[in-house]
């Protein structure tokens, strides 16, 4: 992105730059979290909820180092995805004919959802802190960690639904000829991602089957849908921020430049 020299120091350029940094923090943090995900021994495959207490305790005793490394990484970097989601909030605020109430809702859900996510790794880390603890207690911490990690999807679900509704309202009230901020399919895709995450709330109840926390729906579908959404939204947001930059006159219109070079 090449910011035009004459607007370099204007607030609107600063706004675009900040959004651009937040946007690119997404893949960077995503990469770190992917490493943590791969390094956590309890994810490949996910620990079964049916494991007896002694086995759970042995898991923490045998894999202490990797559990500590991966969960500390989650602890340190997990909430660094917030700036990326804030780009969504910023773009929602630009939607036409809207009062920003959806953006406020999205922001609140984002803050609360992040605090939930920040809690689970603490339980994992406390369990790994003293693996020699009474196995009953280690299992309790393990249960809490997994349930907090998988089940509380309400806030993030709310974010997907709000984005879907906001896209719909943006489109419906678009009368003044300006293009919608996000393409219409983003709303539908967001809705589907949200629906895909709902079953994982049942991970707090079922110990076996696809709804258990190591199951197909609760673990693989939930986390896969979330990761896929992050990747897709990166490109959607990239387009949206670039278009805002062009509209605000912060960068040159790439199409105009293409046209200019063609005539040359």
């Amino acid at each position, binding site marked *: 992105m090449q910011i035009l020299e004459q607007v370099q120091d204007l607030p609107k350029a600063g706004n675009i730059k900040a959004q651009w940094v937040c946007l690119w923090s997404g893949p960077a943090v995503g990469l770190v979290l992917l490493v943590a995900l791969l390094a956590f021994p309890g994810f490949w495959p996910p620990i079964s909820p049916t494991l007896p207490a002694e086995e759970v305790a042995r898991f923490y005793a045998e894999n202490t180092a990797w559990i500590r490394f991966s969960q500390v990484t989650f602890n340190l970097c997990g909430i660094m995805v917030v700036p990326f989601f804030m780009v969504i909030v910023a773009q929602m605020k630009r939607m036409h004919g809207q009062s920003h109430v*959806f953006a406020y809702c999205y922001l609140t859900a984002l803050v609360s959802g992040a605090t939930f996510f920040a809690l689970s790794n603490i339980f994992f880390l406390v369990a790994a802190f003293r693996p020699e603890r009474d196995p009953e207690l280690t299992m309790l911490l393990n249960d809490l960690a997994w349930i907090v990690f998988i089940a509380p999807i309400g806030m993030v679900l709310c974010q997907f639904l709000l984005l879907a509704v906001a896209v719909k309202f943006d489109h419906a009230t678009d009368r003044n000829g300006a293009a919608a901020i996000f393409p219409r399919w983003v709303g539908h895709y967001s809705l589907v991602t949200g629906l895909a995450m709902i079953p994982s709330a049942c991970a707090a*109840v079922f110990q076996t089957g696809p709804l258990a926390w190591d199951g197909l729906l609760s673990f693989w579908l939930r986390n896969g849908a979330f990761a896929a959404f992050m990747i897709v939204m990166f490109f959607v947001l990239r387009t949206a921020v670039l278009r805002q930059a062009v509209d605000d006159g912060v960068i040159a219109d790439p199409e105009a430049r293409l046209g200019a070079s063609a005539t040359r």
Partner: protein
Amino acid sequence: MSILSPDRYITRADKSPAGRPDVRLVTWFFPVWYAAFGVIICLLARVTPPPRPDVSAADKVAFMTTHALTIQVGFVVLLILLGGAGMTNALVAYQMSRMSTGPVLAYAYIGGMGVGALPGFLLVSVCFLTATFRPDRDPELIGLLYDLGMLSYNGSLGCFSAAYLVLAIAVLYDKNEIFPKWFAYLSIWQIVTEVIATQMFVFPAGPFAWNGSISFWVAVVVFSVWLGSLIFILRNTAAREPVDTDETFQGPTAG
């Protein structure tokens, strides 16, 4: 006025929809969500009215096993719907941002309420679900989860007090008359009940326990008055909102 759809909930005198469509949707959602929330916590999850603090570990296990099914259904549904709490709080914050005090107190409200979701809702859900997840656990551990859940649910005070405080300040300073001034005083009562609720961390029984007449019941009545007033105030202020204020809003990320 009808609760069946947003367009019939917030209307002008001639029954046509009033205010902005997106605000209308969230304002309509507010009482709907609280109704669902009330059903969940009172009828399903059984945390309101609260179970007794002054019982033995065996009694706590018995509570968890007797109500296991409804606790699981209630809290799983709550975990799915929890985002509604964020939305309802954000609606209040949105209306606060329209006050002459500007968005700063609105963001403080979002901060307080957003943080409060974890001790206020998440911990109790997770504790009770973990307790019912393995009812054969050591009864002392079930008792621990019971206490932890109830004390965090009833005793998460500061997050909400902070939010009530900034709400009261915003309403008192506001010149746009978004909310009536008396509602600021109601919010101050809420802070007072939260201050008294601190005592539930001291007393396992009596009027100041987490199910006590002062710590709980008076607080519930005050909260109900506060919430009921808020529902009507939000509806009225949404109906009065001019539709063409889109571009005048100034948020931190408003480009």
